[in-house]
């Protein structure tokens, strides 16, 4: 009467799953980064392309190494695309003509120290790409703040394939000749010299130039508009939700607007804050990293606002010209606490977790 014994271990419901997967999400993000990346490649030429390659490959290599050591499936995990994305985002935030060892050390640091040591994907507490960026900035402030003005790959003076490789290997010859400050560090230097911003940022130095990428900066900083377009794609495809970008933008814009209104000579205007530095990249691609941001809406709003505000504070009063990476890391450190205290309300319970009063519910109609 009971012929067949149990054939399989019990499988729990649901028996129907979404077609979504981690690799699909990560590849969508990569796709959203693509236009800005290609544009930046065009702007900065071969050295930037090589640096990007070195960074991505070393991030992948670091991940693969750790997976080998901990005896986990290398190919399957690399295939999830998260290490690729980490390397990519790191490359987007480096000076485009930085020497190869910057990219290589950064990529390794990101995946080994900031990610795999904590247990790999999903277990890291800090954004790996930003950890690596800050590590590089603190360790090698000179090459990490050596920006070059855009020199489109099609321009006659642009380094060719061979020269690009040389720049990658040996660094930029006569850096001072072509060095150019990024907008934020330019503003900071001028302020520290006692020049007011109204004068400093007029004419060729006007912030609007960064809109079209005509200003020195990292790959991800030069094409703010394309980055924003990528962000819009992420929002539309539902990969990210609006809470973090909106809150972060608000956290940055509101104090910036107030300060600028009070003293335009001392405080940068809103557009500059939003369009320069890593702000756009941070807004859509970095602060939104699932693993290191809170996962409730309220938490994400707090997190985003904190990122924006800290970015503003560090940019305005801090020792570093750029604050997105630090702001994101600081808020990463706060994320578990946010998650702990901002939990969603459970149906049938109040915010503190006590059951609702049936009589008040009965009275509703």
């Amino acid at each position: 009467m009971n012929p067949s014994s149990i054939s399989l271990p019990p499988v729990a419901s649901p028996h129907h799953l979404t077609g979504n997967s981690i690799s699909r999400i990560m590849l969508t993000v990569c796709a959203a980064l693509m236009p800005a990346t290609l544009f930046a490649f065009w702007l900065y030429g071969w050295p930037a392309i090589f640096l990007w390659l070195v960074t991505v490959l070393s991030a992948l290599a670091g991940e693969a190494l750790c997976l080998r050591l901990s005896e986990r499936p290398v190919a399957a995990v690399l295939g999830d695309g998260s290490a690729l994305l980490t390397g990519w985002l790191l490359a987007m935030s480096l000076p485009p003509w930085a020497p190869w060892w910057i990219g290589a050390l950064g990529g390794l640091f990101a995946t080994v120290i900031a990610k795999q040591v904590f247990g790999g994907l999903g277990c890291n507490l800090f954004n790996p790409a930003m950890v690596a960026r800050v590590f590089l900035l603190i360790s090698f402030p000179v090459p990490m703040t050596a920006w070059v003005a855009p020199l489109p790959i099609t321009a006659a003076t642009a380094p060719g394939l061979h020269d690009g490789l040389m720049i990658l290997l040996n660094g930029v010859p006569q850096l001072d000749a072509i060095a150019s400050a990024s907008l934020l560090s330019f503003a900071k230097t001028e302020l520290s010299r006692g020049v007011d911003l109204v004068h400093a940022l007029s004419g060729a130095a006007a912030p609007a130039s960064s809109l079209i990428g005509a200003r020195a900066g990292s790959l991800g900083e030069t094409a703010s508009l394309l980055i924003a377009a990528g962000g819009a794609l992420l929002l539309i495809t539902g990969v990210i939700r609006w809470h973090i970008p909106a809150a972060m933008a608000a956290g940055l814009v509101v104090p910036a607007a107030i300060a600028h209104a009070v003293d335009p000579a001392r405080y940068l205007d809103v557009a500059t804050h939003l369009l320069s530095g890593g702000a756009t990249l941070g807004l859509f691609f970095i602060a939104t990293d699932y693993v290191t941001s809170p996962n409730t809406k309220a938490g994400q709003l707090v997190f985003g606002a904190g990122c924006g505000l800290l970015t503003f504070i560090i940019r305005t009063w801090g020792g570093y010209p750029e604050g997105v990476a630090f702001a994101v890391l600081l808020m990463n450190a706060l994320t578990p606490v946010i998650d702990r205290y901002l939990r969603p309300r459970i149906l049938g319970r109040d915010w503190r977790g006590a059951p609702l009063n049936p009589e008040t519910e009965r009275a509703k109609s």
Partner: protein
Amino acid sequence: MGLIETFLHRFAAPRWGVHPDDHKRPAADAPLRQLPLPERLYLPLQQHVGQPARPIVLPGQKVRKGQLVAEAQGRISAPVHASTSGTVAAIGEITAPHPSGLPFSAITLIPDGNDSAGDIDIVADPFALAPDEIAERVAAAGIVGLGGATFPSAAKLALGKRSKVTTLIVNGGECEPYLSCDDRIMRDHAADVVDGIRLMMHAIGAREALVGIEDNKPEAIAAMRRAAAGFAEVTVRPVPARYPMGSDRQLIQTLTGKEVPSDCRAADVGVIVNNVSTANAVHRALRLGEPLIRRIVTVNGGAVWQPGNLMVPVGALVSDLLDFVGLKSEPARLVMGGPMMGSVLPHAQVPVVKGTAGVLAFNEDDIATPPPSPCIRCGSCTQACPVGLLPLEMAALIRNDRLKDAAVLGLPDCIACGCCAYICPSHLPLVQYFSHAKSELWAQERSTLRMEATRKLAAERAVRLERDAREKAETAARRKAERAAQKAAQAAAEAALSTENAA
């Protein structure tokens, strides 16, 4: 759906839940078919929550269709009736429709093919009966909730009456993909359903009835509206198609705005929820005198040749259903219930029970389950959870065996709807984590209770040992005293004797 419509849908829909592809058609549109009487029926004694029924027939006994074969035991219980006429072959065990593959008790019935019913006791106007009497008849008919929970309906009606329920919500949500048995009932028997609803309202004393139907079932909505047209107290209310709209708490919230407090029943806020098929069963019990011995079962899934709805006697084997509809291929997985909450079946030799809404035979493509990856904390599960829980945190705690901490996060409030596991891009078996934790916690609870009992027993034993010792000592003392007394008496006697002698 057009772009604008999709957009509007996004904003109009509730913020919880998921929207899986519903796969309801073409099965929903196929006309109802009758399953031919199988060779054997297995009538399980436990087809409801509560105490199992107690068999009152003996092997070899002949029974008529609808005859009581096992009676209810205790307050929360339901009787079992013969689904057709025939001979009781045995009272034994059969594999339960449960993922564990463990057996449970069932009465084996060999149909005689006549399908002859016994005497039928019908009242002319059930509305003339007292509410309690309706509940009694519902109880006698063995009706249990057909929406999946299989709670004895009479107990629910009685509870509703006691708690002064004003609103009866009729659950025509049928939010599970693939299933369409409720849809079929509403399309084909709308008038009967409405009659059942009015009978239940009478039994509870409710003033109004709201029939919530997901808006992906326009035919059912139309049919029900037509049937309810004459009754002002019955309102048909389309609700957005979003899983798990059919869950009672979510439906109550959507239809009335009330939230059922976490430690309360719906009745505590003045609402009772019943399934449309339950209403139909109530109608049949009171108007036709037929106990709950058959139900509509959706047979669907990629491996099924002719998906559709079947009228099935309770106790038929899943294999009988599958043989009838035909299989395209060996199913990769058999599921009883819907794909979101249904339980996987160990094999096809398990009986259809009263709560079986569907039998799904999936092929490899339907269930292609990639291996789980680590949680990336994407928050989709939190977003989807209709209860507002943090599935990722609970799962992480459970993975580390911190079950109590998971309970603090709200594990007991989880309704196991599966939204979280459905949406998870890492394909984590979240529901299994929660089921594991819940059953493990219950087991721990049981062992704690047991330990308490042990402690009591040990204490009692200590008392007994002490008493025994004391009694022994007392007896010994008494004996000694007696012996001493005896000796004394003897001595006295001897002395007396000697004095006597001396004298």
